[in-house]
């Protein structure tokens, strides 16, 4: 089911539940130093490429590291504390998500939290770092209320296409403006 209609409908539907901006976000303290750095860079990209140029202000406030006593749990979505969580691919939560939807996930984003399953090893390559950053940017897009797009040249592309995008593109900006209006 392709075409431009679906993303538009999805954008309008999400727009009916647009979160107030800026949104607070934390970064899971269990991420490695490399992962924290890239997650924080993804937050900056959201502000520099979406918030500031399109709305005139930041869309995310980085509240630093967050320690959850028992790691991510389903109900953390509803605790009003936005966190970029590291989700262990062997955890019960990931297993439930993958089994329920019959697919694997590199990340998962809702208006409640962001989950990142893809992880970096001790000495990540540039490609692995770019991959991780794009996954975080993609899920942060959902955290901001953005839907998927069918355009390959967008961070919010729904498939597993380009993974070397280092920032949100004009296609992402267009989707963002569908949801937030951008003052127009």
């Amino acid at each position: 089911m392709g075409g431009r209609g679906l993303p538009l409908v999805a954008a309008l539907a999400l727009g009916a539940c647009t979160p107030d901006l800026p949104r607070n976000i934390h970064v899971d303290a269990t991420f490695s130093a490399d992962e924290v750095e890239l997650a924080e860079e993804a937050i900056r990209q959201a502000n520099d490429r979406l918030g500031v140029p399109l709305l005139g202000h930041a869309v995310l406030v980085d509240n630093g590291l967050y320690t959850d006593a028992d790691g991510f749990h389903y109900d953390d979505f509803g605790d009003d504390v936005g966190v970029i969580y590291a989700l262990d691919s062997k955890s019960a939560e990931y297993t439930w998500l993958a089994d329920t939807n019959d697919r694997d996930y590199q990340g998962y984003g809702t208006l409640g939290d962001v989950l990142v399953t893809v992880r970096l090893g001790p000495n990540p390559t540039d490609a692995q770092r770019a991959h991780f950053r794009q996954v975080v940017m993609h899920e942060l897009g959902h955290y901001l209320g953005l839907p998927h797009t069918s355009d390959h040249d967008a961070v919010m592309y729904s498939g597993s296409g380009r993974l070397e995008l280092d920032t949100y593109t004009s296609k992402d900006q267009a989707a963002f403006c569908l949801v937030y209006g951008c003052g127009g």
Partner: protein
Amino acid sequence: MRLPTLLVATSIAVAAPARADDFLPQTALPKAALAATSHGGGGDGGGGSSLIDLTLGVEAGGAPLLRAPDGPVAATTARTSVALFARVSIPMISERIVEVSWVPRHGWGLMLESGDLRLGAVKLHLLDLGVFYDSTSPITVSRVARRWDVAVGAGAELTMRRHLSLVADARMFAPIDIWSVVTRYGDTARLIGDEIMHGGQLWVGAAYHW
């Protein structure tokens, strides 16, 4: 005025004018004609002259279909509950019944009961629809913080004596703002939906009619 206060005030205001004379000055109809326009009172099968049918009742029960807390998320739905209710109708205007209920430890409900069906001494209301104000804690999936639920259900009433009935009601509660739940919880909202479906309350009790 907060809604619970409004609901109580409304129920008292509706229930208070118990005498038909209170309404007569507004119409030229004699009492006999007025009685002829009403449709029976309180399911007692007789009389049929009341302007307002008032029923007060108490019920108790729980969520019989709720699964044991061994799933991926512990259930936060009341396994037992008690409900006190007042049901009011004005037969001259409509057979529909408005119910105001109080569920201790949870909140207040306002329901419109319809879909009436009478089978001998049993009166069914097959489509009850309303709202529930979670003044203390939601009955179903209380881990999802909210103030308002939509409530749907059905019920039955078995007339035992002239003024006394046995009553049974099923009620299911779900967050009114279900879209926010889906966008916040993503696919794991399915777990919430499952708990809502299995967490419906089944109440049995007694009611007194005026």
